[in-house]
């Protein structure tokens, strides 16, 4: 189980497109033990490099605990040479529509994605549905080697992206 002493990796963290739910390349990282901010920082930094941010002025990140994650984020990025953020891009902060209602009232008004101009109608919970699909196979990777586990998760996340791409015109 996650958090037990027998584990060397407790889980994964990832970025995905809020509109259609494609996994962002290079953004899936292992959660070794706590260290959540550093883990998400790195995932976000890698996401910036792969999702074609040229000519973009804003970057909207929707995260369950954005209200505490964003604090001192710029300090963490400036103190650590391994993570970078494009300097001229505005970082917009939001919390998904399911989680924001579980927070304090003030979080709803400050972080709900429905109040952010340009965000459109996004619920910001698409990764939960992706995890639902990924969890069907991730238990099979628990006792493999770390390299094999990375390959399994890589293959299935890539397959999810691919199926999404070729079936995007289907309407039901």
């Amino acid at each position, binding site marked *: 189980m*996650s958090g037990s002493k027998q584990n060397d990796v407790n889980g994964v*963290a990832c970025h995905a497109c809020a509109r259609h739910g494609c996994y962002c390349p290079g953004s899936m990282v292992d*959660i070794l033990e706590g260290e959540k901010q550093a883990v998400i920082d*790195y995932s976000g930094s890698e996401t910036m490099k792969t999702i074609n941010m040229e000519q973009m002025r804003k970057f909207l990140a929707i*995260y369950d605990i954005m209200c505490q994650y964003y604090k001192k984020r710029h300090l963490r990025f400036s103190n650590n040479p391994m993570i970078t953020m494009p300097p001229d891009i505005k970082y917009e902060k939001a919390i998904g529509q399911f989680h924001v209602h579980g927070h304090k009232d003030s979080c709803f008004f400050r972080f709900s994605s429905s109040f952010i101009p*340009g*965000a459109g109608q996004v619920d910001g919970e698409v990764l939960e549905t992706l995890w639902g699909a990924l969890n069907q196979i991730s238990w099979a990777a*628990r006792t493999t080697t770390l390299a094999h586990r990375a390959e399994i998760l890589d293959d299935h996340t890539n397959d999810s992206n691919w199926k999404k791409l070729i079936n995007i015109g289907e309407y039901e």
Partner: protein
Amino acid sequence: MRSVVVDGNFKADHVRQKRPEDDVWLTSGEGIYAERTRYLEHLALAKETKEASPYAHYAPATLIAAVRRMPAIVLFEH
């Protein structure tokens, strides 16, 4: 504006191996997964730059410990 969702998944865990040094990495950082060695370097760096306790400027640790050791009468009567 690009919109992305961030989340962690604690179900995709991994059990410690007996001989992790025998692991063979065919690919690393070519797909959705992040490049491993660079990520581990980052985690090591991130630990070093931990911020100080918010109470560090407030009182030295020895003073706080001394106040904690005081009997309740001393604390409340003065």
